[in-house]
């Protein structure tokens, strides 16, 4: 998911947070983004 996020959004959060290992809070930030996206896609298709 991190790779997809970095590729599609053009932001490398590991660089931003200056870390070598993928861990929280980066993983949580990315999770929250995809949770928002998943819900957004569903709200569009169901006209919420």
């Amino acid at each position: 998911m991190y790779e997809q996020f970095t590729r599609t959004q053009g932001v490398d959060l590991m660089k931003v947070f200056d870390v070598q290992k993928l861990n929280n809070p980066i993983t949580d930030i990315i999770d929250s983004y995809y949770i928002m996206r998943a819900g957004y896609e569903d709200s569009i298709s169901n006209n919420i």
Partner: protein
Amino acid sequence: MKKSGQTSPKTIVGIDYSLNSPAVCVSTNGGTSFSDCYFYYLTSKKKYMGKMLENVLVMNIKNIMVLLRDLKTYLIGYYTYLIHFIKNKQTKIFSLKAILTVQKAKQYFKLLKTVVFLNTDYKKNIIVERLYLVLLKSLPQVKVMLIKKRCTNNLQEHKVLT
């Protein structure tokens, strides 16, 4: 200028809840790209306690207040109280603050069409999830949905449950 018949963009909030390192993604202008969103996270590590980017912020009282002002929502207020409750087991204090917060939030949510999405992991976080649902579903005009999170590279794997 807002045209006749044009609706305001929805405020969309994605919450990745956990006890130690929750994160919140807020999309307010109808877009879903990284730059359209604000991210708030909680951490115990000093290194991460600051503004990492303009839109990536650690949760603290100052930016919670900014968020409240900007979004006119008390959602993060709920979240902070929830974390406080879980960590300190201060049930009575939590309940009182939560009730006050709900009252204030109801006024603000009248003005917004807000959609809230939560991640879900029934085995790990069922109590937290129930608390969220009770609080958020009591608000008018707020659609709450559960997203089942799966750790894959495929966005479609995040299933909408309700």
